[in-house]
């Protein structure tokens, strides 16, 4: 087994100064959502960290997650992390294809048995193995085979994490999440449609720097990013508190940047870091562009009522059943009154 260089060595070889390294560590702390006071520890950890092997599997997905990651416009610093990892299999990105690619995967698995990371985007169809295959291997089989020797699995995107759009009602392919199939390895969910690139890199960075997996919430998501709701960190929150709401997409409130709750914003129930991390190299996030949060990082977001239905709306049926209830009420009332009158008549007769 060849000796992989430490990250410190990689950087030194690239002629990066200590100041540059400090800058890199500060940025890493930012990515990991760690306080700046942690920078010295990060520096120490990174200097001695070794490149892990990463296998990326893509199942029922749209490649949006990969796009999100590769289009992430901070190649230099975050790119360093990818320099620092060994992405040994990614059928969209790698030059090799077919048997060659599969051979690369098997080689990486053997070489790093028990220590590699598996990244998955896309959900896995259980309805019929033929719904989605790679090199003739069904998604389930490939996942099981690849995960067997992994240190951990990272589900990238809502499809891998929760079933996502393939798993939406009526779920024709019987799509399931990675977590539903992999139960004997740590599974880290990085949901979002797509997930924030920085969150993906953060998980890798933590694994790389500290060799540990991040602290997770109940849904297996890194708490550092999914610990608070969009609503909690939304810059429009004060408008919510003041009761100022946009009523439509082109009214005064919308133009004045008021809260989008009434337009169906799912911010209050969506745990993600968009409001602070933002998108497109920190340009903005959907609410900042005037659109309510869809809640894409939440399980079943596609089926949670209409995107533009306010969160506090009840799911009522038509008025017909209510009218039915009213009629039933009248019937019961008439029956009760009749019973009461009968008793009165009976008691009157008995004296």
């Amino acid at each position: 087994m060849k000796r992989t260089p430490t990250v410190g060595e990689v950087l030194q070889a690239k002629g990066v100064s200590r100041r540059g390294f400090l800058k890199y560590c500060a940025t890493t702390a930012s990515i990991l959502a760690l306080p700046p006071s942690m920078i010295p520890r990060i520096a120490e950890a990174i200097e001695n960290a070794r490149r892990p092997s990463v296998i990326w599997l893509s199942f029922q997905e749209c490649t949006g997650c990969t796009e999100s990651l590769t289009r992430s416009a901070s190649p230099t610093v975050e790119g360093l992390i990818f320099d620092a990892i060994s992405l040994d299999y990614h059928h969209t990105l790698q030059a090799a294809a077919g048997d060659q690619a599969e051979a690369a995967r098997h080689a990486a698995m053997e070489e790093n048995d028990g220590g590699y990371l598996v990244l998955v985007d896309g959900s896995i169809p259980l309805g019929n193995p033929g719904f989605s295959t790679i090199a003739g291997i069904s998604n389930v089989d490939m996942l099981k085979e690849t995960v067997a020797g992994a240190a951990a699995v990272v589900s990238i995107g809502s499809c891998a994490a929760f079933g996502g759009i393939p798993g939406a009602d009526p779920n024709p392919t019987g799509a399931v999440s990675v977590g539903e199939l992999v139960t004997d390895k740590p599974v880290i969910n990085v949901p979002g449609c797509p997930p924030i690139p920085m969150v993906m890199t953060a998980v890798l960075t933590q694994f790389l720097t500290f060799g540990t997996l991040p602290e997770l919430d109940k849904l297996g998501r890194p708490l550092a990013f999914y610990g608070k709701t969009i609503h909690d960190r939304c810059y429009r929150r004060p408008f919510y508190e003041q009761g100022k709401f946009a009523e439509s997409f082109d009214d005064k409130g919308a133009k004045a940047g008021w809260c989008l709750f009434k337009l169906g914003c799912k911010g209050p129930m969506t745990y993600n870091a968009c409001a602070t991390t933002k998108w497109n190299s920190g340009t903005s996030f959907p609410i900042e562009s005037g659109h309510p949060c869809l809640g894409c990082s939440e399980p079943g977001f596609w089926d949670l009522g209409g995107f533009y239905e306010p969160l506090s709306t009840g799911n009522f049926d038509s008025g017909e059943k209510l009218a039915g209830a009213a009629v039933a009420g009248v019937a019961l009332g008439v029956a009760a009154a009749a019973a009461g009158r009968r008793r009165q008549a009976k008691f009157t007769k008995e004296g």
Partner: protein
Amino acid sequence: MDLLEFARGPALQVAAYILVAGTIWRLVGIILLKEKPEFSEPRARGGLGAALKVIYTRSFTADPFKPATLYPKILAYVMHIGLFMVVFLFVPHIMFFEGFLGFDWPGLPNSIIFFGGVAAIVSGFALLVRRLTHPVLRLISNFDDYFSWFITMLPLATGLLIPVRLGVRYETLLAIHIITVAALLIWLPFGKLGHTFLVFVTRGTTGMVFERRGAKT
């Protein structure tokens, strides 16, 4: 189906059916009992006008009773106004109503709503303490009184906890809140909370009976 879906869907629906059916059941069950004939020559006009008058005037305490009933009256007012604010003037609630009424009305800022909710809870607890300690109330209170108190306070408390969170997820809290509301709606027609609609009947009845006598109402 997760908890929130259950709360917003079947739980609320069933609660709404029971609320509507129970309310009508109780009202019809009362109204269709035998009528009391009234042949005496009226001194003044009774009728609907008198009913409406007393429905309004009985909202205020007559001067002679003010000193003795001041404390519970203030508490009751604070609780009812607080409840009203929270239920009908909190914007997400207005949207809830808009969802099936089809129209909305202006709400109040959350800070004021929060204040109203806290005031309602505080006065609710003060009323409970009074019920538990006042000899008259201890004697005349029954299960209905305590249960109705509990089931009214629950949605208030769970609602106020949503922004506080206490480590529980928003949608879980929201679901619990909605379920407590459903419980309240289910109980409302049957126990003393029925006063939300019976108050119009009792006050109205007294208005019609005593106004036509020209007597004090």
